[in-house]
């Protein structure tokens, strides 16, 4: 590709827009100019997360398997280049720099109120310039070891991973994003370079930038700093995952004051770009667990739940689940209530008024997101990495019908696909 290809992406429903540029280097760039705002947020990310543990490119004869937690380890190490740490570079401009690794992506970001062009230069430069040595890899083992310990002390993290471990037999989503102290001990500079060269190819990456910016200034810097990449035909494989869950219940004791639970349903994974399923599922869990519902009121009155009760959809490449969570001393009774409500809705259908209200509420929250620089930058990169356009969610919600939601509830929320994960209070 020799030229940049530009398109304006517009919401059919609201008229909100952003710019998408397929850069000649292979990178997808999303820009939303937000005049009047002081801040700028940029995210430069790769479709590479903790689940990508087995892969090959068109030039490789064999698949490569790598230790759990390596994507996260790589993220830490990319923050250090040959001359100095990246934080030092941001310290000179005042930007707040950071990075995160999730199940299916790694993103490097900054937010700033001044010098955004300089910060963008720092971001694009260091992410394209890896520097791994035995010494700096060894040093990181200790810091990440501490991070793993810290997250294992977080009950909300344990309850979630216990849930995933019991939901999935083989899919690497069941493994902690940071890996374990044992798995990260196997990581070395050579493996990091192998992963970097495979996944940090601009054809596999997205740049998202929102706020007080100008498209021409951004593209000028991109033209200058992005090194064209050959598309290497990256292919990730995941082990065959049965439709059934691994085990229906898991309990763990921790020093917590209030017991926590997550009740998750393993659903068939969505096809890439299937935003309709995602939105139908999002509305479905609101309809089942909404605070205005009869079931919610009943559980609250019986003291089964408190105000922490809620639901969310967790989805990505090869996994999709609907999860209810909260604090409860009787999580099994909560499960029975939710099963009863799913049966009732499947039998009686969805109340049209309730559906209209929930849809309106979701629509409102999506509109509100567009008023926040960080939320917009995240929306653009998340959508792009999931195969959607940034305003697809708003447009899809507006057009969703109660029948779409009922179909999801009837077909996908099966009792035998639910896992209950509980962190119980440890008696001292």
């Amino acid at each position, binding site marked *: 590709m020799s030229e940049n290809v530009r398109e304006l992406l517009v919401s059919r429903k*609201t008229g909100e827009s952003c710019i998408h540029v397929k850069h000649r280097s292979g990178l997808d760039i999303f820009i939303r100019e*937000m*005049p*009047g*705002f*002081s*801040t700028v947020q940029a995210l430069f990310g790769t479709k590479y997360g903790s689940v990508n543990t087995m892969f090959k490119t068109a030039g490789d004869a064999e698949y490569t398997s790598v230790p759990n937690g390596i994507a996260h380890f790589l993220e830490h190490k990319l923050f250090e280049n040959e001359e100095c*740490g990246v*934080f030092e570079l*941001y*310290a*000179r*401009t*005042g*930007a*707040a720099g950071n990075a995160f690794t999730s199940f299916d992506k790694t993103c490097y970001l900054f*937010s*700033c*109120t*001044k010098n955004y062009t300089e910060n963008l230069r720092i971001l694009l430069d260091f992410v394209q310039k890896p520097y791994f040595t035995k010494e700096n890899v060894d*040093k990181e083992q200790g*810091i990440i070891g*501490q*991070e793993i*310990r*810290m997250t*294992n*002390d*977080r*009950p909300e993290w344990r309850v979630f991973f216990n849930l995933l471990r019991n939901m999935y037999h083989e899919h690497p989503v069941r493994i902690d994003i940071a890996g374990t102290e044992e798995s990260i001990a196997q990581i070395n500079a050579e493996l990091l370079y192998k992963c970097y060269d495979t996944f940090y190819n601009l054809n596999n990456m997205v740049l998202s930038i929102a706020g007080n910016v100008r498209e021409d200034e951004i593209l000028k810097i991109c033209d200058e700093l992005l090194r064209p990449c050959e598309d290497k035909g990256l292919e990730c494989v995941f082990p065959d995952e049965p439709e059934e869950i691994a085990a229906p219940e898991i309990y763990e004791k*921790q*020093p*917590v*004051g*209030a017991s*926590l639970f997550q009740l998750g349903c393993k659903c068939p994974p969505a096809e890439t770009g299937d935003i309709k399923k995602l939105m139908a599922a999002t509305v479905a869990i609101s309809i089942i667990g*909404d*605070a*205005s*519902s*009869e079931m919610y*009121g009943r559980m*609250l*009155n019986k*003291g089964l739940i*408190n*105000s*922490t009760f809620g639901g969310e959809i967790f989805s990505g490449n090869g996994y999709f689940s609907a999860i209810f969570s909260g*604090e409860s001393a009787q999580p099994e009774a909560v499960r029975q209530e939710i099963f009863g409500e799913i049966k009732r809705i499947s039998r009686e259908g969805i109340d049209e008024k309730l559906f209209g*209200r929930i849809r*309106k*509420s979701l*629509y*409102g929250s999506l*509109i*509100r997101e*567009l*008023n*926040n*620089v960080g939320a917009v930058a995240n929306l653009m990169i998340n959508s792009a990495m999931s195969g959607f356009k940034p305003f697809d969610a708003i447009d899809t919600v507006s057009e969703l019908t109660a029948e779409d939601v009922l179909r999801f509830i009837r077909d996908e929320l099966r009792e035998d696909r639910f896992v209950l994960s509980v962190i119980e209070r440890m008696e001292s």
Partner: protein
Amino acid sequence: MNYKRISLGDNIGFSTIIDEKFNTCSVSVKLITELSPETAAAKYLAADILSISNSNIPTLAEMNERLSALYGASVGSSCSSRGDLQPVSFSASWLHDRFAINGESITAEMLEIIRDCLFSPNVIDGAFEEEAFRIAKNDLLDTIDGQINDKRSYAISQLHKKAFEGEPAGYPETGSREDAENVTAETAYKVYRELMKTAQVEIFYVAPEENDDVAEMFRNAFAGIKRCSRQYKFRAPSPLKPETAVAEETLDVRQSKFALALKSSSDDIFALKLLSVILGGTPSSKFFVNVREKQSLCYYCACRYSETKNYLLIDCGVERDKIQAAYDEICRQTDEVKQGNITDEEIGAALLSLENAYLAVQDTPSGCISWYFDVFCSGEIITPEEYFRKMAGVTRERLIDAAKSLTIDTIYKMLSKEETE
């Protein structure tokens, strides 16, 4: 952004922050009152009840029904302590009317809901309605029980308890479990009435355009209350203990934690604030670079300054057998500043980071409210730019003096079991 504050009389301030870039409207009402063991739990409960029901919308289910129909508008409350005070916060946020699909006025409905929640709660025979009260009370008891779930904030709360022993700030904003259990629907209602009568009130309205109806609604509603309030002083420096206090406990955790309270004898709040950023407020700070990056002693080691209690809080997550090494390095880095070993780059980086953070507050309604409430509490209502100019005026000498004014008052350690047993 256009900021304006007027008085609604009777110790009630009303601030408007108008910025056409926002697509939402937000209201936040701060009822400022002292933090006291006798009333903390009752205030917490009253605040919660106000946000889940009112006399016209008597149940949580109906409240949620109304709010979701208003495009997912929200109503909430919080009761965090601020030094020795306990501002009870009631807030609401909704989409601006121009986004309403059928042209309905979301704002008019929301103003009614806010008025009814604050001034006409769901009360039967001189007590909060029993059902709403029971839900709120269970929630509070779960909140108190759940405080230990987040180990980092639990460690900080235990440090506060020890560092501010005998002062209101040493008391939890939720009250103790026993306090919470003893509150009745009647006593909570009494405390609410007292609060509306005696609290110093600051109201904030953030929106894309002016709307006189908001101030008018509050003016009229407060006119029905016989007010008798006083002005509170937020800054109440904590006295230094004659000897460093140490509190420790062993828990079944994988990572140990420790936290330090360093009390200051200085009133130079700008120097102390800047010092806290240089020590542990950014990834280029002395603690991050030396304790975490160079020595790999911990995953986080942070520092922040409290203007109200005039102390620096330092906390870190660390392996049990590295606590002493981390402590020594923290002391060494603090001593470095006392001896003047602080580079222009370190000062410059801290200032740039603060400037970035200050300017960014104007981009969200919640940022604007926090900013203008914070500066109100500090006693001088100034813009982020003006505040930063004062910060930028801090000299190296003032930083050294600020560092010299610090003494370790309290140490809290949460020790992991697994390395000993």
